[in-house]
């Protein structure tokens, strides 16, 4: 029994953090709000991260969710804009496990985004080479040139959402199990990003309340502030091992993966919500200003907490899994 990441996995997280510290500081996230700017993408591609989940023969590293978990956490930590989760954690594995080699060869070269049932919008659809769409339990491919892509404004402007409609779609697969796994991968990826976002908000808040003085002392020396931050920290510390356990379950295709994924997404969503609320309250007015960066993380956290199943959605799935028949 060893519940920890390998040295290689930790090293990849370190590399990711280095790239994102350099290429995706808050100014870059802000730039993505106003421009159609995708920070760090080429550096992440060059580092082999963007396509890491593709099989080696298609230019990837055959990475699984355990390899991805810390990378996605780092993406959340930096509030990285763009389709890393959709492309790397969901679309590539979905194509790789449902399509023949010729199709893989064709699709895995370009940016993939994906719309699973239940999610009304697609992120970065306007940039994608191929848009994957789940419809009635089938997986279809859409060429963006055949599609009407209508941009939608998210409260987090760095998320470039759109609705996608197209008459011309190509059936890729009817493997419902693979699609079910794709849902779980999307929820897992969001959970990993959420714990990263939550940690970043707590860290940033700790820095601020250590410096900010009121009543002649650091705001962070007040017990009320300490306890709020401690509670948020505990929530994140409990969510993280659940996210890691979900990664393990997905990587090993365990039959209980849905249970572990729902646990992870529910706790990570709630932890990120709590961290956002705590961060704002402990900052006071400054955190409420648009010029201060906190809201870049907060709004991402709100969006991802609601995406791919809210905490309540995942608890409902758990109720069915745990309580079965008895759950009316």
């Amino acid at each position: 029994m060893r519940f920890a990441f390998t040295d290689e996995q930790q090293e990849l997280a370190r590399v990711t953090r280095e790239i994102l510290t350099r290429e995706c500081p808050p100014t870059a996230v802000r730039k993505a709000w106003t421009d159609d700017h995708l920070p760090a993408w080429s550096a992440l591609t060059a580092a082999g991260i963007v396509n890491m989940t593709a099989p080696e023969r298609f230019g990837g590293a055959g990475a699984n969710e355990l390899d991805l978990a810390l990378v996605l956490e780092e993406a959340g930590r930096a509030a990285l804009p763009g389709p890393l989760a959709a492309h790397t954690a969901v679309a590539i594995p979905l194509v790789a496990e449902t399509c023949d080699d010729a199709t893989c060869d064709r699709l895995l070269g370009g940016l993939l985004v994906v719309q699973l049932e239940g999610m009304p919008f697609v992120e970065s659809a306007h940039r994608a080479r191929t848009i994957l769409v789940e419809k009635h339990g089938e997986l279809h491919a859409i060429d963006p040139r055949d599609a009407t892509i209508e941009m939608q404004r998210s409260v987090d402007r760095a998320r470039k959402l759109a609705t996608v409609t197209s008459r011309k779609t190509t059936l890729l697969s009817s493997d419902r199990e693979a699609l079910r796994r794709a849902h779980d991968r999307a929820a897992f990826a969001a959970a990993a990003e959420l714990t990263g976002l939550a940690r970043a908000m707590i860290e940033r808040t700790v820095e601020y309340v250590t410096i900010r003085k009121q009543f002649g002392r650091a705001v962070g020396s007040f017990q009320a502030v300490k306890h709020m931050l401690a509670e948020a920290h505990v929530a994140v510390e409990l969510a993280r091992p659940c996210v890691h356990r979900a990664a393990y379950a997905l990587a090993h295709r365990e039959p209980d993966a849905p249970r572990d994924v729902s646990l992870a997404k529910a706790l990570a969503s709630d932890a990120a919500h709590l961290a956002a609320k705590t961060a704002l309250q402990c900052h006071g007015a400054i955190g409420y200003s648009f010029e201060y960066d906190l809201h870049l993380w907060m709004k991402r956290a709100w969006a991802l907490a609601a995406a791919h199943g809210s905490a309540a959605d995942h608890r409902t799935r758990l109720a069915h899994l745990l309580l079965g028949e008895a759950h009316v």
Partner: protein
Amino acid sequence: MDLRFTDEEEQFRAEARAWLRAHAPRDLGSTGTREGWDAHVAWEKQLYAAGYAVVAWPRAFGGRDASITEWLIFEEEYYLAGAPPRVTQNGIFLLAPALFEYGTDEQKARLLPKMAAAETLWAQGWSEPGAGSDLAAVSSTARRVDGGWILSGQKTWSTRGIFCHALHGLFRSDPSAPRHKGLTYFLVPLDAPGVRVRGFARLDGDLDFAEVFFDDVLVSDRDVLGQPGDGWRVAMATTGSERGLTLRSPGRFLASASRLIDLYRRTPDPRVADEVVRAWMDARAYELLTLQAVTKLVDGAALGASSSVHKLAWSELDVRLHEAALALLGPHAELDDGAWIKGWQFALAGPIYAGTNEIQKNVIAERLLGLPKEEK
């Protein structure tokens, strides 16, 4: 106990309701834009013309001598009609109570009618970069000179302060006095030489805050509210005012709860039903708390520190109510196109402004429950 309203009160309600439903505009745009601001001011002038701007004020100043109960009725109808936020708020709810208590007759006659008529729009100048929860740390100064005062320093977080004509706020006039003693309350024209106003955006991106810089701004003695050195007491008249933020209109939250119930009916989700019910419960409980307080006020009692209970109640229920709405909207909630995501961000300010909820809990613990102060 008699919860019926008098015939006169019911009559007043019917008139207010009819007028508001006929006239209340929707979607006036953001008060952070010139256009939106002007539209809001126009609405204030329309309210004033109809006699609804400041119902509880004396007629002499533009009001209609309404009782506190009628004021509450008006507020309820105002929000039920979905009427816009009031850009006169920093004047009529925050400054006016202090003016009524500490203003000279000359000041009242000069300032109140224009405030009521939305001819003078007021900004609040309390917070500073270094004085938030610790309001008494104000470091903007007022220096006595011949025939007046010279103001210097910086105010910030002045809500809807960009397009205002005047500012009311605290300045340190005696740096040698104890923290709470050396403050004076000033009323400052924002077109005075040396004043600079910079707008900045709040959480939702609306340009709705202002920083105000004072670079040796000369004001006269008649711009002092109350006695020099008595600024803290004047400010407290504002925060303790029963018709200001303390009795923050229950109508606003009942109206929100009612919109939430409508939303539930359109997009029912049994898992959220309990949160919708709780939102209504909290709003209703807050209304009843307010009615109880109104009766106490009518009986001549002061609310004092119990206003902190009210602040906690409305600010927390507002956050919770919007959380329930976002839960109903699911993944659509993040779309920045609706009243709920806007309202949610607005609600998040509630636990911070007008004294953070942590400060309010200190007040409740120390002044209502009698727990010992933290030793310095």
